[in-house]
């Protein structure tokens, strides 16, 4: 069934922020790049000892007649997916006509590399904060005249299907015994 054309493009999809006009106009020597941690619009498939990113359209060649709309309707595939994004349906974000595309609320198709705009339509305040550097973090230079900067894509921190930021174990605590007294007591 799968006449597989493997999606072997470069791993990190890089979007120039100025193209997205998602950061305020700046006249600086260097610029900001949004780097996503995975190749958006592909499904990771284990092929022997390799993992390959396979484009959605490779399998989704025809429109499913009774497409699953919610995670619990998936019986054959994508079943390991965790879903916890309100009560959104798959097609609130994925384009049912073309699985290689996303879809905005007004029906317009949207390329996966512009996923930021998908998130932005429902999360305006976070997007605004992100544009101003107050959400989502960054690496590199505070002074863009001295060097460039990279930004995380939303999906690096939020799985679009289960977007709550994950819990984790902290780095080890300090081992000095010189904490102010009050705090040492509070620990016991």
């Amino acid at each position, binding site marked *: 069934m799968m006449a597989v054309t493997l999606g072997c493009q470069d791993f990190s999809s890089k979007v120039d922020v100025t193209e997205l006009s998602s950061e305020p106009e700046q006249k600086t020597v260097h610029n900001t790049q949004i780097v996503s941690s995975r190749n958006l619009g592909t499904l990771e498939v284990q092929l022997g000892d390799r993992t390959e990113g396979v484009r959605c359209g490779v399998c989704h060649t025809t429109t499913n007649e009774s497409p699953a709309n919610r995670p619990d309707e998936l019986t054959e595939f994508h079943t390991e997916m965790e879903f916890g994004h309100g009560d959104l349906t798959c097609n609130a974000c994925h384009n049912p006509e073309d699985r290689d595309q996303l879809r905005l609320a007004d029906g317009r198709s949207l390329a996966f590399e512009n996923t930021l705009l998908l998130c932005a339509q429902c999360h305006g305040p976070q997007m605004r904060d992100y544009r101003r550097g*107050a959400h989502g973090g960054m690496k590199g*230079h505070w002074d863009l005249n001295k060097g460039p900067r990279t930004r995380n894509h939303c999906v690096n921190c939020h799985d679009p299907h289960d977007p709550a930021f994950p819990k*984790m*174990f*902290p780095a080890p605590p300090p081992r*000095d015994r*010189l904490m*102010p007294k009050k*705090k040492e007591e509070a620990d016991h």
Partner: protein
Amino acid sequence: MSDSETKETAGISRRTMLKAGGATLGAAAFARAFAPLTEWKPTTSVDDFLQKHYKEMSKTDMDSVLRRLEVETKENYGADVSIEDVKPLDGVKFGYALNLSACIGCRKCADACHKENNHDRATNNSYIRVFEMEQGSINFEHGNATYDHEVPADGKYYMPVQCQQCDNPPCVKVCPVEATWKEKDGIVVVDYDWCIGCRYCEAACPYHARRFNWKKPEVPAEEINPVQAYLANRMRPQGTMEKCHFCLHRTRKGRMPACLEACPTGARVFGNLLDPESEIRWVLANKRVFVLKEDVGTVPSFFYFFDQ
């Protein structure tokens, strides 16, 4: 470790001597004038002894001090490092803001500081302490800094505290020898070679942001960050105070502090307070920011906020 330790504690510590002298006479000026003489001990080299105050050193003086410190680091730690004297930038005053809604208490900032700034491995020292706080409470004195469980825990929030780079720094005022001062970019620095270890500054700091080197910091040669600056992350001598310097060896070259880059939640915002287009200025103008212990009048350059 034990070898160097005994060596350093065997003689009369120059720092202890000076502290005693200063206390008896009670005059800062006296301490300052006599610092070099009373500081003498057998392990002090002649160059060490004759070193001038940071602000009085010429470029040539400084260069020879830096080369000497590089050689000493090689001898004491077996590491090849390069130490620079990185000066403040014109038109820059640094500010830092932290989003307490985003912080999850993972301590990655503290850990990055530990490595970036060549902190003692045994104590896991860091300039950042992360307090686990009860929701509703705002006083970090009641927080717990040694929690060790999955984060964020229910009902808690997390407050990282480091030097607040106050515009009115109580620590600077109490130093009897002017070994700590505020630079024009707002960073409060310590000259580890001038510090006498009296710890007055530590007591004066309302944020418990200063750390004292009770022992010679131990870091394996291969783990030492070799990119160092005189007022920043070079190896500190035993018996001296140290504190967060906003990673001046990075930030004065336009880069982000190590703690910001390490934050997986994007809770930290850093930049130039004098640039109206900067991210930090946007946060100050658009978020309801507050400072810690505003009532003590320290005027911090470090701000906190919650979303909404």
